[in-house]
């Protein structure tokens, strides 16, 4: 692989007593990409993240982060946002941010400058000297994310970064995340919101019961689960078209239809046939690629 690798996990295993939380996972995260970790609750995502961060040691397997086993210097180049999160309640926002940034090796004055700048970006300047417990949950969450990137890490690992946020704050956070990525940073994130994965992530790893279920580029996976079918909207007798095996009317028989194709037929041929037919009009034509949400549910159902 020509791409630089930020994280390399090989056959990692973690047991909690008799329970195997992570079972022989192998994957790579490339530098500069947004990598999604998906899976139902309790599937082993957080345990995997903790092993990458060296908070937990794998029982078997090997993990290399930023070019080798995680050492103290490399830890300063990582940012982590855990799932259920909080801050010291009785401490002022700016003080809290500066402390956490200096722990990552940022000089004090610089940490303060960066904190104030990011607070302004997040429209939270006026709260810099307020105590954390005077802030709303959404505000606290934005500050926690700010802390994650304050030391300008090369890699951030964010566990459910958008959970509990309203749409406006979600957008603000997403902008920060994409900005971080545009600056060359690598993002590993877990989420339950599949449309965000489709929108933001390059590749994904889906885990169920500690085992790998899906792994690879998001588009490839969607295509792999694609039906040999097309979705059309418009007027006409779809069943007459050459290459169409069967018509499935969706959405209570309204104008939208799912056309299952014969093995030899291609979508291009069908499109050409539609445009050539004088009694047919078309308003929408697309490949029947399922959403990640559908794939997610299907994979989980299959392994139930």
């Amino acid at each position, binding site marked *: 692989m020509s791409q630089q690798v930020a994280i390399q996990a090989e056959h990692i295993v973690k047991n909690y*007593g008799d329970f195997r939380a992570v079972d022989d996972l192998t994957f790579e995260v490339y530098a500069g990409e947004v990598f999604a970790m998906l899976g139902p609750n309790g599937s082993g995502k957080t345990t995997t993240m*903790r092993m990458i*961060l*060296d*908070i*937990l*040691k794998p029982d078997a397997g090997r993990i290399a982060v930023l070019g080798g086993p995680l050492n*103290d210097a490399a*830890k*300063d180049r*990582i940012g*982590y*946002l*855990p*799932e*259920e*999160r*909080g*801050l*010291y*309640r009785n*401490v002022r926002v700016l003080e809290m941010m500066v*402390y*956490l940034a*200096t*722990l*990552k*090796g940022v000089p004090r004055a610089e940490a303060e400058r960066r904190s104030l700048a990011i607070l302004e970006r997040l429209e939270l300047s006026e709260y810099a000297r307020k105590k954390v417990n005077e802030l709303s949950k959404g505000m606290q969450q934005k500050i926690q994310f700010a*802390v994650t990137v304050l030391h300008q890490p090369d890699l951030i690992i964010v566990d459910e970064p958008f959970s509990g946020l309203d749409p406006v704050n979600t957008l603000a956070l997403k902008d920060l995340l994409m900005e971080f990525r545009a600056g060359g940073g690598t993002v590993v994130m877990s989420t339950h919101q599949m449309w965000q994965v489709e929108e933001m992530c390059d590749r994904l790893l889906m885990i169920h019961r500690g085992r790998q279920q899906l792994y690879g580029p998001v588009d490839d996976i969607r295509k792999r689960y694609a039906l040999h079918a097309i979705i059309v909207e418009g007027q006409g007798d779809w069943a007459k078209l050459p290459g169409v095996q069967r018509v499935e009317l969706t959405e209570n028989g309204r104008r939208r239809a799912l056309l299952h194709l014969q093995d030899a037929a291609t979508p291009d041929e069908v499109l050409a046939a539609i445009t050539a037919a004088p009694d047919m009009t078309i308003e929408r034509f697309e490949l029947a690629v399922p959403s990640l949400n559908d794939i997610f549910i299907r994979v989980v159902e299959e392994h139930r």
Partner: protein
Amino acid sequence: MSRHMWQVFLYELKRNVRRKGFLFATFGIPLIGYALFFGYQFITNLNDRGAPSSPALEILQSSQFQGITKAGYVDLSGHFADPGDLSRLLIPYADEASAQAALQAGSIDVYYVIAPDFLETGDVALYMPQFTLTKATDWPIRQLVLRRLASGLDRDTYARLLNPVQLREINLQRDATGATETNFDADFAIVYVFALALMLSVFITNGYLMQTVIEEKETRLIEVLISGMRPTHLLAGKILALGLLGLAQIVVWVAAILLLARLAAGSAAPALAVLANFALPPTTLIVLLLYFVFGYLFFAAAYGIVSAVSSSMQEGPQLAVIFTLPAVIPLYFLPVFISAPDGPLAVALSLIPVTAPLSMVMRVSLIAVPAWQIVLSLALLAVIDGFLIWLAGRVFRVGTLLAGKTPKLRDLPKLVRG
């Protein structure tokens, strides 16, 4: 010291020194102590100024007497017919019937009946309208009897009869020259104050240690912190910061006590007058310091373990009792320590690590403890400290991640293995 440990140390120092609870304990407790002391002295002075000079009346004004303003008595023995200068208080009646009538009329609060064979038996009956604790006293009749039996004695002899001996104890064990007087009350006070100061400070600062760890667990901030540093560095930075605060607290308290002792030098309060002569020898001070440090580390590691495995601020202190309860055992044996500071119990308790800090502090403030005992006790304590700190580091790593559930006893070996 690693960079992270140093940063945690500085931050926790800054954060905890501003705690209202810490500031109150460190400065408020001595201030309250001063206020109580000077308030007490002021009131005592006021009372002294208004006090009558006659010893008899002083006794009459004794607080034990306040329940009765007027008492009657029937003397069947024939020795105490005349109340003398007690007539304002004690009214003689010829028989029980007239005394009872006076009681019912409300002109007296109670009446006594002195038995015919009083001189042989000392029998006196007290009649009161209903049982009242403050009225159930023999003081009026005791004054009458003492005055009658001691009539003809001079004032000094009378005073000696009432309080025959003023004992002064010279403890040769404490000071071989015999130059140091000891006074049970003063010794008791000094030992108690030092032991209490040590334990209070250790418990207060380690309580904060537990609070900060549990807060980090509850908010999951601990994961952010230990994703960037070793858990042992985090714990060590906290322990050092709070230890320093504890030490500062003890220094403030001891300074306050010594200052109070100097202020009390001219005072009439006897316990404090002794305190004024009390000076800590430098070697004792060093021993106190060493026991603070090693004792603090013992409880810091213990609290570290407890906070790593507890899931809430309600649960932590309950589990900590496992360590704190045995630690204060020496306080229950305080009288034994004072009467036999070199006895087998005191020596044993000062060697067992969990009770050593308190026991040894009590002993060294009373006697010159043999050096080998101090060395052995400190060595044992240091070994246990080392073990507990190691254990805390292990448990901390895994225990801190177990949010919301407390591990069972059988899970502990697993926690240690990480």
